[in-house]
């Protein structure tokens, strides 16, 4: 009897351990200039492992800065970030790039790189200096492009691509890093509804089929529920609310996050619809 109960607790602990958050941030504070305004003020959050999460909030609320902190691109002035149990700052940049892929907002290029060259750049962290990509890397690049249905673009120049295609190629480059975690900063900003939905579908599939963890900065409140597992809502450099989409996408939370009482959310046929009264 006793033994059974212990086993039960063990199993629970083991389960808890297996779902330990991939990224844990505690007490983050960050200002771009020393002594300047804190863009991030006392943020603590857990990015759930193997799930698709979104970071929402008004312009200037610190979303981009927060993903850059979580991706290790900038260092917090205060607080600590652990990635898979290890302090993020102790992981060197190249090793980090094999585990975390970060996609910046803009993905335009001045030089007409081919899509193949662009995606192969994702293999850099696996390639020693003065060495070049090997046939294996080409295979990885192929399957990365295939995963986002963009293999047909491989010979094209990135200059000729549409905004949506460029975003897919950037996502393929991130996948070519074979990361455990994707951090995407407004990947759908320049896309039409069809392409935005397509991108969310790709991300959903990556989480479901490959156990990828993804955190996406987005303004697409319409595409959050039920595609996303978890939401973080930011306001003035803090995480004002977090939880499942049904709990975050409510009139009260949205009004407080966006500082606008006109924003409404309603459950409708298994999804949450968000709109603004005009």
């Amino acid at each position, binding site marked *: 009897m006793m033994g059974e109960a212990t086993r039960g607790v063990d199993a629970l602990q083991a389960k808890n351990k297996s779902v330990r958050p991939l990224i844990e941030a505690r007490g983050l504070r960050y200002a771009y200039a020393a002594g300047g305004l804190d863009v991030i003020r006392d943020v603590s959050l857990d990015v759930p492992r193997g799930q698709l999460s979104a970071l929402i909030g008004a312009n200037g609320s610190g979303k981009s800065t927060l993903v850059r902190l979580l*991706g290790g*691109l900038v260092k917090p002035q205060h607080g600590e970030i652990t990635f898979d149990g290890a302090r993020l700052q102790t992981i*060197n*940049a*190249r090793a*980090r*790039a094999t585990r*975390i*892929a*970060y*996609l*910046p907002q*803009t*993905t335009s*290029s*001045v*030089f*007409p*790189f*081919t899509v*193949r*060259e*662009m995606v*192969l*750049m*994702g293999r*850099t*962290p696996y*390639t020693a*200096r*003065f*060495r*070049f*990509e*090997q*046939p294996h*890397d*080409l*295979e990885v690049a*192929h399957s990365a492009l295939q995963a986002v249905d963009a293999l047909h673009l*491989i010979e094209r120049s990135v200059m000729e691509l549409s905004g949506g295609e460029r975003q897919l190629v950037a996502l393929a*480059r991130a996948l070519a*890093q074979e990361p455990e975690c994707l951090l995407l900063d407004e990947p759908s900003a320049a896309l039409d509804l069809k392409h935005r939905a397509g991108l969310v579908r790709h991300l959903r599939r990556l989480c479901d089929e490959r156990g990828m963890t993804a955190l996406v900065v987005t303004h697409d409140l319409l595409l959050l529920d039920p595609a996303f597992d978890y939401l973080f809502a930011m306001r003035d450099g803090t995480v004002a609310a977090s939880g499942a989409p049904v709990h975050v996408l409510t009139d009260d939370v949205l009004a407080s996050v966006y500082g606008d009482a006109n924003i409404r959310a309603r459950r409708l046929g298994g999804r949450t619809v968000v709109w603004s009264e005009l």
Partner: protein
Amino acid sequence: MTLNRKSKIANQISSLAGRRLRRALALLFITLVVSTLIALWVGYQPLDLAALRTDETARTLFFRLRLPRVVMAGIIGASLALVGGALQALFRNPLAEPLTLGVSGGGAFGASLAIALGLGAKVAGTPLIFVAAFLGAGAAVLLVYHLARTGPVVLPGTLLLAGIVLNLIAGAGVVLIQYLSEYGRALQILRWMIGSLDVVGFDLLWRMLIFLVPGWIALIWAARDLHLLAVDEETAASLGVDVRHSERLVYVASSLIVGTTVAVGGQIGFVGLIVPHAVRSVFGEDVRIVLPCSFILGAAFLMLADAIARTAFGVGELPVGAITALAGGPVFLWLLRRQQRLAAI
């Protein structure tokens, strides 16, 4: 399906950067050898192999004058083209090169200041003048960069405008220094300003190489980082590049290289523009290919340009800078036209 995919990948293996670089280098090496032979052959008097074997004067002329000059042209051309390719990637601007960024102007100002202050008994070749030119070039690149940068973005149009105006200011500064200096030194500055590859013997070449080789190594070392920086800084950083460190390395190496070449040969413009552009249009955009290929093609290019400067027009020797400007200026304007998007910013 998988078989099909395997064969598809097999077909693309030849497109991998390493293999492309090997093929490109083989081709360019042949170009370099041919260019060297042509440059050695032509001159005030075409090379006479029989005389070279028998005549002591002919031998001296060849080994003390023509050979060093051709090697000098090769070294300077290679250096400028390498720097051009690196700066273009760093600033994400295909029109960037030592002249258009004001780097060579800054170097010229530093060098002429050193000459005016009497820091060198000879115009070219004293380490102090190299150092002064290096400092001038370094100051110019930092100044232009800070003028054109707003936050994380370097405005491409502003970068070029700032660079070209800086070149004009430095040019005015050189003229001023020249007027204020005593006659002998002013003449030295004037002679050097015209820019020439006149060289006697190999001493100067060795002294130059002490400054140039570390710069070359640094830029080739940074080629992989520059390949990623050519897309954007955030992408490079997320792929493991220490952006600030690479930037600093490229600034220092470029200033060292441009300062040294300017101190010896004066301002030779547009080599850093034409050569990397030609390489990119033939061998693709991969910066890890562009840099070593520009290095070799740059050597071949300036040797041939100097051969033309020495022989064409039948009016004695032209400054090689005039030839490269005549060839490169129009290429710059043509690229500017193609990059309207860039120039508008």
